[in-house]
């Protein structure tokens, strides 16, 4: 069971007098003190270049960065740490894939109808530039994945890139089955794990995922950090789209010799402090049991869902079943701009929630919904906070 008191004591933000009711973890998770301290450790004690440095400071920095890489590899059960490429975020990971994989005109790529712009726009660009055929797999009305549709569309597809857990409704797609079916049909699969990585155990081996991308900032890590994973043999075939310092072994005026993976994908000096912080975040998460996280989130999700269902005008996006929606409750009221609710909630009780289209504009446009208000929580959120949210929302309904 999650002991929220204990967890909250690891976060300085909960120390102060004006503690926010932070319900926007799907956008950005809070960071435990240990992550911040690890980053400060780099800046205070060994703020040096890695790899090429002959000095002790540089060696220490190299050791810490490589430790982080190993920790992350272990965390997602990668074959080895070479399969871990550091990026700035999920978006960069997906762009790396889109621009490095040898896509050709006419290649069929499948995505779902609920993709974040980061797993939609790069493919649309590729469609414009290379002439791939982009197909959208329509989901069920309750936001769950439609395997039948997928089975039909995957025939002849070269690549499948789908969101694992949707930031729109928190629904998790059946990645294992999808990957299995895709592989049977000769297609490779990339999973956008931006959301799922913090809420469920990701085991790339068990899933047999070819590529995955995720961001550090949604999993208690620093902003500006991310990971792109790929199976070693696949990564070796990719041709990096960003090259320069740190990606080559040597160069002459006429030619260059690329480094091996992962270095060949990490152009220029990296965010070492961030990477070390991310390694620390992974350590922190490693101490928690994902079963407990899921159980805790379900408890909060169930309460909020049940309370929201008492307001007839409220429509929850995705499944009515909270157990399918991870740490997300996203809702809207027809013909209503939800921004004002978010602003008032913040004003009344310092509640941080998100309103808008959550970078899934395509879905909102197709459904003709103006925008929605998303509540998303994590291990540090308490039942009291869920109650404050519901009480404040009730207050707002009284005056509107």
């Amino acid at each position: 069971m999650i002991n929220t008191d204990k967890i909250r004591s690891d976060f300085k933000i909960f120390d102060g007098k004006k503690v926010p009711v932070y319900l926007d973890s799907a956008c950005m998770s809070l960071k435990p003190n240990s992550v911040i301290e690890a980053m400060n450790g780099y800046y205070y004690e060994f703020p040096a270049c890695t790899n090429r440095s002959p000095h002790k400071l540089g060696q220490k920095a190299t050791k810490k960065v490589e430790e982080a890489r190993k920790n992350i590899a272990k965390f997602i059960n990668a074959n080895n740490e070479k399969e871990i490429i550091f990026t700035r975020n999920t978006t960069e990971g997906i762009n790396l894939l889109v621009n490095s994989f040898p896509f050709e005109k006419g290649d069929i790529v499948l995505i779902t109808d609920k993709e974040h712009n980061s797993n939609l726009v790069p493919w649309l660009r590729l469609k414009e530039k290379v002439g791939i055929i982009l197909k959208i797999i329509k989901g069920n009305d309750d936001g769950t994945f439609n395997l039948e549709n997928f089975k039909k569309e995957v025939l002849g597809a070269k690549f499948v890139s789908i969101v694992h857990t949707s930031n729109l409704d928190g629904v998790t797609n059946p990645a294992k089955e999808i990957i299995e079916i895709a592989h049977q049909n000769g297609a490779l699969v990339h999973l956008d794990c931006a959301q799922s990585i913090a809420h469920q155990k990701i085991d790339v081996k068990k899933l047999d995922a070819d590529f995955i991308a995720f961001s550090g900032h949604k999993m208690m890590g620093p902003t500006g950090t991310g990971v792109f994973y790929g199976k070693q043999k696949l990564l070796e075939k990719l041709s990096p789209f960003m090259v320069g310092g740190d990606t080559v072994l040597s160069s002459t005026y006429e030619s260059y010799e690329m480094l091996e993976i992962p270095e060949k994908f990490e152009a220029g000096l990296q965010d070492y402090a961030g990477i070390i912080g991310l390694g620390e975040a992974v350590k922190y998460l490693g101490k928690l049991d994902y079963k407990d996280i899921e159980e805790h989130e379900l408890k909060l999700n169930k309460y909020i869902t049940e309370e929201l269902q008492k307001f007839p005008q409220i429509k929850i996006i995705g499944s009515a079943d909270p157990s399918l929606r991870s740490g997300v409750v996203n809702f809207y009221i027809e013909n209503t701009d939800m921004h004002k609710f978010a602003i008032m909630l913040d004003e009344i009780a310092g509640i941080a929630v998100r309103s808008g289209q959550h970078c899934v504009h395509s879905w909102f446009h197709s459904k003709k919904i103006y925008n929605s208000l998303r509540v998303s929580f994590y291990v540090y959120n308490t039942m009291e906070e869920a109650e404050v949210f519901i009480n404040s929302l009730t207050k707002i309904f009284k005056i509107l």
Partner: protein
Amino acid sequence: MPCIVALIVFGIMGIFSASQRALAKEALDCVFKRVTFRPCNTGFAEKVKGKLIGKVLKRSTFLAKLLNKYYEVFSWIFFILMVGSTIWVLRGGYNFYVYGSCNGLNSSGFCAFDPSGSNNKVTPLGDSETCGTVQKTEKTVTLKNVDLSSFPTKNVGGKDTVVFIGCYACDYSRKAYPDILKLVKNKNANYIFAHYPAKGEVTNSLANAGYCINKDYKEKFWDWNSYLFTTDKNYILDPANLNTMLTKFSFDVQKINECVNSIETKDAVEAEVKELNKTNIYGTPTIFINSKAFVGPKPYRVYRSAINRFIFF
């Protein structure tokens, strides 16, 4: 409407704070409808409305409901108040620049730019029996039908006329004096100086001395006058020092003393004071610039603006 109100509010606040400046820019975009359909960004008007209603809701559900229902009406009221108070503030600023007081020429009401009211302070005359001047409102202070021909005059024929009615013993006259001298010099104005013995006997004798010096030593009078306005007040007011001062200027001490004590001088000075009282003067310094009265020591720019054709030049 809420955008216009916000633009004005944040526009003014933006003068002082950069963060408000950003909001003012947002408000400007809002006014010109530059923010179109952007469901991922909070509309500016909605943001302000939500924040306001949220703040009220924290205290009272009833008031929040009212504000939500009549938000447009409240916006209009606020807008009108804003425009009103903006005009009022601008007027105050203009008045302060041109007259040295937010409330208009010689008005001594509270002015935020001059909280101590120093630009309107005068040495009152009413409390002195010898002067016998009754406090008048500034509007009645005038040069109409006042004969100033007996007072010391220079730059005769100048385009502008400056009349300075001051008293050697009064701090406020002493404060205004150098500015008036500067004004007369810079603008080559016709300048008439009238000493008003605001502080009774002690100042009477200096008034008499001035009268006599102007009669016999016209050219040197102005140096004498400046000397009295700029030398320690206690020293010049002590009758025992009069002769020393006269000697300093190489005046005929005996002759001047005789003149000072003569009945004729007393009558003449009394007549002058009577003439000055016709201006309805109620305190020194009172300065007339081209017949417009300035009561109290104003900043130099006020005097200058009174002569300039376009306020600033």
